């Protein structure tokens, strides 16, 4: 029987499984946050790497997988964040943690004019354009003599050892200064990874996320129903630049040494990240998590094989693209109907009596 004209309609989004997943995620983050209390320094350092690669992968996935902006120039914002961190701490004398936050804001200020240039390009030209822009950034930062010019520079212990809260950590965990620095970086990395993931999820659930889904299927049709796709895409580009810039700042606080070639490396900050997203599953939130774990394991056990490592990495990427084009997560999710981060909206009808 069709519903009466006076029927009430509302949206339902959560499923029992999603409540369970949210609860489990909170527990997981709490457990991860406690790891420095009982794990060794090398575990902490490896997890920092896992967290920032995960955060970078979430950003690139939002940009390419959801907004269709296939950038191969995100190293521009990693390097920008890194260099800004050095400038803000060495030259302006700020606390590194404050500097990381500022790096995000300044990255936004750089992203806007950059977008106005690269948004004029489409498809493959956009991808190449972003890369060219990253090269311009690299050449630009190589000119700053105070930041070491083309050879780069280091963060002195007077900066890295003065991070906010380090004395407190030293007494809490009863560790020396270098280990305490790692613990702070660890927490910041964990917070950035978790925040990026939550950010992506919230964006996808928002009205902007709805627009992204429509644009992905048909740009013309999306515009015809009122979606301002230029603005939506610009917003996503700037938001990912902010997150990527903060992650870059953290990476180079942890490294304590920066050079233009490393900071703006397309291999480290874009190619590996694309590998992670493609292997795990582009256009899903879960995919980059799976991809990061695969990448970490390969890096850990194969990196010593040198060139073979890269060959295996490339072969695996090609195999996944051929046999599971939606990535490992996409393949599993399709088979078993999994979704840890539901963004679907269901319409519920309630007939009035």
């Amino acid at each position, binding site marked *: 029987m069709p519903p009466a004209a006076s*029927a009430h309609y509302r949206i339902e989004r959560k499923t029992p499984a999603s409540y369970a997943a949210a609860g489990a995620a909170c527990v997981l983050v709490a457990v991860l946050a406690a790891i420095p209390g009982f794990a060794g320094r090398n575990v902490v350092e490896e997890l920092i790497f896992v967290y920032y690669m995960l955060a970078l992968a979430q950003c690139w996935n939002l940009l390419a997988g959801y907004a269709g902006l296939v950038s191969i120039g995100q190293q521009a914002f990693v390097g920008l964040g890194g260099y800004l961190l050095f400038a803000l701490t060495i030259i302006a004398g700020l606390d590194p943690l404050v500097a990381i936050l500022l790096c995000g804001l300044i990255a936004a200020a750089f992203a806007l004019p950059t977008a106005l240039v690269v948004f004029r390009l489409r498809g493959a030209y956009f991808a190449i354009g972003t890369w060219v822009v990253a090269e311009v950034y690299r050449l630009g930062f190589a000119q700053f003599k105070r930041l070491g010019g083309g050879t780069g520079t280091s963060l002195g212990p007077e900066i890295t050892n003065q991070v906010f809260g380090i004395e407190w950590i030293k007494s809490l965990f009863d560790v020396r200064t270098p280990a305490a620095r790692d613990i702070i970086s660890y927490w910041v990395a964990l917070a950035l990874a978790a925040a990026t993931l939550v950010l992506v999820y919230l964006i996808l659930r928002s009205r902007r996320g*709805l627009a992204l*889904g429509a644009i992905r299927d048909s740009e013309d049709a999306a515009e015809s129903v*009122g*979606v*301002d796709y230029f603005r939506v895409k610009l917003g996503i580009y700037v938001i990912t630049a902010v997150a990527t810039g903060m992650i870059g700042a953290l990476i180079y606080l942890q490294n304590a040494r920066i050079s233009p070639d490393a900071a703006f490396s397309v291999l480290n900050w874009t190619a590996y990240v694309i590998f992670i997203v493609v292997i795990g599953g582009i256009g899903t939130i879960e995919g980059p998590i799976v991809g990061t774990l695969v990448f970490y394991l390969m890096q850990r056990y194969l990196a010593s094989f040198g060139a073979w490592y890269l060959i295996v990495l490339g072969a695996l990427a090609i195999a996944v693209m051929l046999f599971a084009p939606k990535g490992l997560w996409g393949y599993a999710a399709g088979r078993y109907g999994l979704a840890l981060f539901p963004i679907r*909206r*269901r*319409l519920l009808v309630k007939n009035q009596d």
Partner: protein
Amino acid sequence: MSLLEIHGLRKCFGSVVAADDIAFIVAAGEALGIIGPNGAGKTTLFNLIAGGLFPDAGTIRLDGHDITAARPHQRCRAGIARSYQIPRPFENFTVFENLLVAAVHGGRKSEADAAQLCGEILNRCRLLPRANALAGSLTLLERKRLEMARALATAPRLLLLDEIAGGLTESECAELVGTIKELRATGVTIVWIEHIVHALVAVVDRLIVLNFGRKIADGNPQAVMSSADVQQIYIGIEA
């Protein structure tokens, strides 16, 4: 009171003139039909009105405001909604989500308000049982209905329907005509392109005929269909 005013509209694709000095006015609340042979420029006219194409010359006014240079999403928010001749659903969305994005972005509504509106439209367009099905899984009739429902979700004042009955069976077509008649009664202004003239004439109060990008007739449906120019084009096509 005129809702849409078109003056001297012209659009060329290379040597093809798809719109040649077209002018007409649509009054608020009117239902206007547009017919013409294949390639006459009907869809091109809709693209020009909805903003998917920009004209080489001429002006388009909505409510007296010049919208000739406005982007498609701006025209949608100003009250123009369209359906596509070849349905373009958001295939990875459910039917309901297709409408929701239109109501939230085109209609500037909150999601809660939008849900109520979308539910009512789905009910009226007989799509409610399919609300939570993926749009990619719909039949042709359902896709046509979805085109119309999604356009309606933007709460338009001017609804452009491009061959919404094309490819449907006789009974499906009759059902769709019923739905469009109901819509008309709600006060929305309709411009409807259709090859199936008897379906069109059952709803519209005025008919425009296009041929080779030119408007060759405009007026009362019976008078237009019996005029010599139109008879010549339509000879043997429709009784």
